[in-house]
């Protein structure tokens, strides 16, 4: 049942072999071009060494590098209980050996990805935009998809292939530089012809290999997306959750240039491709198809149901391997979760996410009795802060990053006697002295009705 890994194995091995052949061929041709006699073997060894070093780095640090590139922050249960619980739920449903680390990216474009090598260390990362947009069932579907990637060992495989792609690109770049550098030309007359052949082959390969490798890389990733969708439906028993999440995600994808193309296949919906770019270059299958397949799973949540829907919608080939399908029994669907998505609920969820972002940045968060939420940067030295709306003085709580006093008492500190300052309406900078003697400058753009003397904390009314 969980041997979905094997269903893709043969195809994956073929693709990886192709990629490896490209890498070795590239090394061979470039080596031969530099020195036709001993070069080819040296070139192959060199290419493999580049790949080996990259792979070694990736094994040691790969997931951390990816998470750092994406700007993800690790969170614990108390920082985002809902997200953490949903990941745990899906971990249990999938039977994954260890709890993945949970990361949040501060980004309003909703998306998610998974990295790492289960069972040793793996992680799931989601953007704050995703948390704001989805309800619990939908979030469960998305996390189920990511856990499906981990469970099917897609993250490891994509890293392996991604590293090969990286090596090929690196070697091609290297060649383009060496090509113009002075090189040791063989004095042997026989090798002249061979060198020309090597040169032609190298130039061809240098131009073609990165493109071919990228196509292979993307072909690998597309198939795996379907499989992860099927896994998600199987874990959650509720394909509608993922289907409706995918719809929402597709609508809100803004084309982002800064997302690395090599990173792109890892996200749940492709962050780089525009909707029309479906073909050899897209990392993800078309979202409409994915949604239609999920919605077409009428009978149940089993892999067999997904396969039936897949063949109906896509019409060709098989998505899931025979061995996996053979071991599959009937799996019932479940009903939608109890959580309705009222407007009130949406607002509450959005506020929670904002608070979470604040907690991540260690901001001190408080609510003024007039209802305005105030965030204070960590390490602020002042004791009270003036509410920008009502001008009330609020004591800054000393509690750490998590304390959110709901019913903050009205401040009881005796505020210094307030004073009033009449503006001259000159339209330029003005300066005046506070009653304590501190000089205050007013910018022409200053428009608030109050301001606080930085020296004595007195509230000054600006008229």
């Amino acid at each position: 049942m969980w041997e979905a890994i094997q269903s893709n194995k043969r195809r994956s091995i073929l693709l990886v072999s192709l990629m490896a052949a490209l890498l070795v061929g590239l090394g061979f041709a470039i080596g031969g071009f530099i020195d036709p006699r001993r070069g080819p073997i040296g070139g192959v060894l060199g290419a493999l060494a580049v790949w080996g070093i990259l792979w070694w780095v990736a094994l040691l640090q790969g997931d951390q590098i990816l998470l750092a590139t994406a700007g993800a922050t690790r969170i614990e249960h108390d920082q985002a209980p809902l997200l953490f619980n949903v990941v745990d739920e899906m971990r249990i449903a999938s039977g994954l050996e260890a709890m993945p680390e949970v990361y949040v990216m501060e980004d309003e474009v909703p998306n998610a990805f998974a990295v790492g090598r289960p069972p040793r260390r793996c992680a799931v990362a989601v953007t704050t935009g995703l948390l704001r947009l989805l309800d619990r069932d939908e979030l469960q579907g998305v996390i189920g998809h990511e856990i499906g990637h981990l469970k099917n060992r897609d993250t490891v495989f994509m890293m392996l292939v991604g590293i090969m792609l990286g090596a090929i690109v690196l070697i091609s770049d290297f060649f383009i530089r060496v090509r113009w550098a002075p090189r040791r030309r063989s004095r042997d007359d026989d090798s002249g012809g061979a060198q020309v052949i090597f040169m032609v082959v190298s130039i061809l390969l240098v131009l073609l290999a990165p493109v071919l490798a990228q196509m292979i890389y993307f072909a690998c990733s597309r198939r795996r997306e379907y499989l992860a969708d099927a896994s998600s439906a199987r874990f959650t028993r509720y394909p509608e959750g993922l289907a409706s999440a995918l719809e929402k995600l597709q609508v809100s994808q803004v084309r982002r240039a800064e997302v690395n193309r090599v990173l792109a296949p890892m996200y749940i919906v492709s962050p780089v491709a525009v909707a029309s770019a479906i073909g050899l270059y897209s990392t993800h299958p078309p979202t409409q198809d994915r949604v239609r397949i999920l919605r077409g799973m009428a009978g149940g949540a089993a892999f067999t149901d997904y396969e039936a829907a897949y063949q109906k919608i896509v019409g060709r080939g098989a998505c899931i391997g025979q061995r996996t399908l053979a071991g599959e029994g009937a799996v019932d669907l479940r009903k939608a979760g109890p959580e309705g998505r009222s407007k009130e609920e949406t607002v509450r969820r959005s506020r929670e996410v904002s608070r979470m972002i604040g907690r991540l940045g260690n901001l001190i968060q408080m609510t003024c009795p007039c209802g305005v939420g105030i965030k204070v940067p960590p390490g602020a030295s002042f004791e009270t802060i003036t509410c920008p709306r009502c001008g009330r003085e609020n004591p800054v709580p000393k509690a750490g990053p998590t304390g959110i006093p709901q019913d903050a008492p009205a401040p009881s500190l005796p505020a210094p006697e307030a004073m009033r300052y009449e503006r001259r309406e000159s339209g330029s900078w003005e300066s005046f002295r506070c009653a304590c003697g501190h000089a205050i400058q007013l910018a022409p753009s200053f428009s608030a009705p109050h301001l606080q003397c930085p020296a004595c904390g007195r509230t000054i009314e600006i008229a």
Partner: protein
Amino acid sequence: MSGTIILVVVLVGLGLVLVIALATVAGMYNGLIRRRNEAKNAWAQIDVQLKRRHDLIPNLVNTVKGYATHEQKTLENVIAARNAAVGAGTIDDKIKAEGALTGALGRLMVVMEQYPDLKANQNFLALQEELTSTENKLGFSRQAYNDASTQYNNSLEVFPSNIIAGMFQFKPSTLFEVTNEKEREAPEVKF
């Protein structure tokens, strides 16, 4: 002379076949053990989640008490159901008691909807999230246990691993059936 060479070749060949056969048997045996352990681990998860639910309930009741003063009876029912579930001995008793607890909790959650003050309480919201998630985890761990058991049971039946299973007397794992379909869902309450 050539006779000894043939003998050596035959012996080496037999040795190879034996080694391969042993490796295959060992592989299948390990596979069965792995699947059985997966089922066992999944079963342990159910207990973890039940324990978590029992731990959460006193907290929840304490938070609710201050707001929902008219719901003394519902709260008492929840506490009674929780204590019965904690004290349940046999597996059958446990399943029955946990079902009753699910029902009592469901009724409590419906009643809570009528107290807007309570729904604005951060502490209550946090507890509610934990409880919802624990219920989900309970469901998912049952599901995972059944999945793992089905897979293990299948491998006991299919050729060739059934031979190994017979040889080492692997027992099939029983599935977790919720006897009463209604227990699976939170009960609806009519007013």
